[in-house]
């Protein structure tokens, strides 16, 4: 409703009615068609793409992440709404920083699990694995590395 009020703004008369109707239709289109139906269908195709990636000997991780993102579009939207601070001139940069913190604190430890599996898989196939061990540590130390990088540049 807040967005609707913003979109319609101070319009009056017939234009206000048209704008309100357009907003309602667009909202229905996004929430009912795109999020509830289309995103799930495209996510299913991404899952099939992941299987084809494996068949081609490629990594399926990118396709799987795309599939997860499409299936969780609704909650990602809600997450971004919680990060959005209305009325703040720096709302965009604040949201980007909040998303970085979410990725560093929640998703990076999950990525460590993938790194560990990659290490064992590489050992099995006699491939180099030290870069996976190093990145595994880095995923767990992202906040520390961020503080270290800032200290290099003299930032607090």
């Amino acid at each position: 409703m807040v967005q609707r009020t913003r979109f319609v703004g101070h319009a009056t008369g017939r234009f206000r009615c048209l704008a309100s109707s357009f907003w309602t239709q667009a909202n229905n289109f996004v929430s009912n068609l795109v999020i509830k139906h289309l995103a799930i269908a495209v996510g299913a195709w991404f899952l099939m793409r992941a299987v084809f990636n494996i068949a081609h000997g490629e990594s399926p991780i990118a396709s799987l992440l795309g599939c997860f993102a499409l299936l969780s579009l609704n909650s990602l939207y809600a997450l971004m709404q919680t990060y959005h601070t209305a009325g703040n001139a720096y709302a965009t940069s604040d949201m980007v920083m909040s998303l970085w913190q979410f990725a560093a604190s929640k998703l990076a430890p999950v990525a460590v699990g993938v790194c560990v599996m990659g290490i064992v898989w590489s050992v099995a196939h006699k491939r180099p694995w030290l870069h996976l061990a190093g990145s595994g540590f880095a995923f767990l130390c992202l906040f520390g590395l961020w503080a270290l990088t800032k200290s290099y540049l003299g930032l607090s």
Partner: protein
Amino acid sequence: MNFYTGALHAVNWAANVICPILGAYFLCVALYFCGQAHNYGQAHSRYTHYWYAAWGMFLIPGLMRLLEAFTGNGTNASDPDTYYLALNSACNWLANVVLPMNAVVQLAKAIGAGSGVFSRTGHTPVWGPTHHVFIGLMSLCLSGIVKLILHFINNAQAVG
């Protein structure tokens, strides 16, 4: 559905369900190739990576906890020294836990090499046991050797 929960469940499924099965698969492969190597007169060590991978597949949750322990379990996560301390902890663990275990294995190998039980022909290499004993001693003394080298470096004086 939540993105974080979905990714977490996917990784948990891979680590707790798929990886143990792959571990059993690698054990089968290792055993098969070990037999093949024996038939064709090749060294067994050419296929030991399958053994290591099999144990690694069974130990993936433990390895994950190990990496977390090295990084301090998230305590004081914003410390700039976190990455350095994690690598330092890993190095200490390798030098003071893994290498002494390797020393025991090397001593067992020295006994095996000296007795000739692992030799297909019964021929025992002259330097075989010595090689393993030397590696075992070096594994046990690595921390001391590193400290000795550092002592020499720190107390070095110009010649002449």
